[in-house]
């Protein structure tokens, strides 16, 4: 009796719950649309919210930097700097003898870009005999763990300098601030919201990346052409800036962005999305990507559909460069160079020598184009290698990077 009545109450409950779930996911969007992004109200069709990462001033700065000629040795872009404002580091000069102990708090090695980068950094450390110890703590993508790692390295190790590659911009700020009081800190890749670090090493940035790729399509695709934008996942700051810059360029042009999709970095999903887009829109005249990991899958989707591959943007990943050359694509590969992993080591040694370093060490961000493709495409490297590694002349290359002579 009891179970029966209870079961009878079930169906309305099911309906109610399902209804509640459905309405809750379609309507009442929380009112906390980012308040800080008043600069650019670029709400367009598709209901995209203005990215809270878009900053007009930074955007313009990056586009300007992209046109600058960097200072420093031309053959060593990882030692070059753009518009440096030097800062004095005499206070950090290492006294006494004995080897240098460098410490590195790494966000993780959860993607090939970071894996290549870490190899670069380790190779750079080997180049310097004065470095006697190099400690790496890997946070495996956990902000919480990286905070502890930074505390541990700053607190009880005999580190001479601390290199930090933050997992998340905002969340690591307090930990870095605390570490700054104890030893010289070098931040690279992503920044933190404090300028207490002696130097912040990073390339030009996401706006520059996104704009280069978008401008290429604007140039190569005929007006009214249909553009498919493929993004990895929402909410990653370095990727959001790429997309916001590209969107700005597309909005100004006569191109029509028919779809902006998230691929999760999964090539199978990418292939599906591209082939669906081809059949849905009849044709696609250009593909913009916010990173190159899935570029080859996109190219293959066009091949499998039996249509010509339109102009496409990728990244300096080996498999894409190879496909570009083999299939004679119309392509461009802006980069977020992995050679930036070498610079923090160099910066740390300069700081411990008391030599000046830029407060923000802006590295150049070269682009692979048709003209210089052969220069960067090196046969025998593994498919997930990043060509802009600056590692070609390092000892152990190509074997240590997984390549063959």
């Amino acid at each position: 009796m009891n179970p029966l009545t209870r079961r009878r109450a079930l169906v309305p409950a099911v309906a109610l719950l399902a209804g509640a779930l459905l309405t809750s996911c379609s309507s009442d969007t929380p009112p906390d649309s980012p308040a800080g992004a008043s600069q650019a109200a670029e709400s367009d069709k598709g209901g995209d919210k203005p990215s809270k990462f878009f900053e007009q001033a930074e955007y313009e700065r990056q586009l300007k930097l992209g046109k600058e000629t960097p200072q420093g040795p031309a053959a060593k872009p990882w030692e070059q700097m753009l518009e440096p404002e030097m800062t004095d580091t005499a206070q950090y000069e290492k006294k006494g003898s004995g080897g240098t102990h460098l410490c590195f708090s790494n966000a993780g090695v959860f993607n090939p870009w970071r894996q290549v980068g870490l190899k670069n950094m380790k190779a750079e450390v080997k180049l310097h005999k004065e470095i006697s110890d190099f400690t790496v703590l890997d946070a495996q993508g956990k902000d919480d763990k990286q905070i502890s790692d930074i505390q541990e390295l700053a607190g009880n190790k005999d580190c001479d300098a601390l290199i930090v590659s933050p997992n998340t911009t905002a969340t690591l700020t307090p930990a870095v601030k605390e570490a700054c009081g104890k030893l010289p800190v070098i931040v690279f890749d992503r920044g933190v919201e404090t300028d207490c670090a002696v130097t912040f090493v990073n390339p030009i940035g996401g706006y520059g990346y996104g704009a280069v790729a978008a401008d290429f399509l604007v140039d190569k695709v005929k007006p009214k052409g249909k553009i498919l934008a493929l993004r990895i996942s929402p909410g990653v700051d370095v990727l959001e800036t790429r997309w916001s810059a590209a969107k700005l360029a597309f909005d100004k042009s006569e191109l029509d962005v028919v779809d902006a999709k998230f691929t999760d970095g999964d090539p199978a999903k990418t292939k599906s999305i591209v082939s669906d887009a081809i059949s849905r829109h009849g044709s696609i005249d250009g593909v913009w990507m916010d990173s190159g990991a899935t570029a080859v899958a996109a190219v293959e989707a066009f091949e499998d559909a039996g249509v010509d591959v339109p102009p496409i943007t990728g990244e300096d990943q080996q498999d894409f460069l190879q496909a570009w050359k083999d299939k004679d694509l119309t392509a461009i590969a802006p980069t977020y160079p992995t050679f930036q992993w070498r610079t923090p080591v160099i910066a740390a040694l300069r700081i411990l020598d008391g030599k000046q370093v830029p407060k923000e060490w802006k590295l150049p961000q070269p682009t692979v184009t048709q003209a210089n493709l052969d220069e960067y495409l090196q046969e025998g490297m593994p498919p997930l290698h990043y060509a802009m590694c600056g590692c070609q002349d390092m000892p152990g290359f190509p074997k240590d990077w997984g390549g063959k002579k």
Partner: protein
Amino acid sequence: MSSQTAEKAQASTAAPYKRVVRSLGTGAPVYALLVILLVALASTDPGFYEPDRFLAFVKRAAPLVILAAGQYLVIVCGEFDLSVGAIVTAGVVAAAEVYGSFPDAPWPLITAGLLLAGAATGLVSGLITTRLKVPSFITTLGMMLILEGAVFFWTGGSPHGQLAEGFRQMGRGTAMGWLPWAVLACLVAGLVAVLLMRSDFGRTLIATGDSERAAALAGVRVHRARVIAFVLSGAAAALAAVLVGGFSGVSAQAGRGYEFEAITAVVLGGVVLGGGRGSVVAAMAGAFSLQALFTLLNLQGVSGALESTVQGVIVIAAVGLGAADWSRLRRRRIHSSGGRPS
């Protein structure tokens, strides 16, 4: 034994129509869902049923269908296999790594090697689960960590070679110029699974999942049945790895999320977690439904971010309705035949 053969004979003489209806009965909601989704697909995209397009859809669904068939075997005997996603990733990366060292390795050898390795992984999981009495959720969770860790440790984070074109044909190419190999593989795997479930082994497996004790008392070697289920699931995952790797090439995250998708597909097919009930055809239909849902969401242009919300709601709703409604209807029928006012 003799009663079983008699039963078989009876089954084969029974009208095929009745058999179809009976087998549909267990997973009816999933077929309804699949039909709804396929109709919705047709109305959003009129070209969806052109042979090429439809075959491309089946091809895309093939890995998940094969994984679902393997997962079904494990689930129906009362276990889980959370390691299938890791097997797919490890398979793709390992194949690329081997090609890095031996660029001219013949593809049948690599494929066979992968299948064997997948089966071996399943064997280990099965033995740990049955002999050491570790719940399969934990065994395969641990196996997932071990496989992912080991393969990336081995390759230093990324494989050193490309997958050869010959190897990729299975996932990418077509037979006779129109029939994708993946569709063939999917059909064969499905057929094998159906035949397997019709065989004595299938009945053993279901009996094991239904009540291990009763099955053991009836003389079923439950441990052996479970181990075989894990072996087959591992091999199915390796086959999926061949297809996924062929379809989209090397990726360090080829199999990410497949374990949850496969289990969702099986449950969507009306198969009860905990074992003992459900049909393998329905499980595979669940996989097709899931893939159709993904495609529909993609074609509809649902805001990328909301996709997963819609997916979550539909999965819960479908499983919920499948679980609650059908038992209720049956109950009501019995109830009303009793003639008591409600």
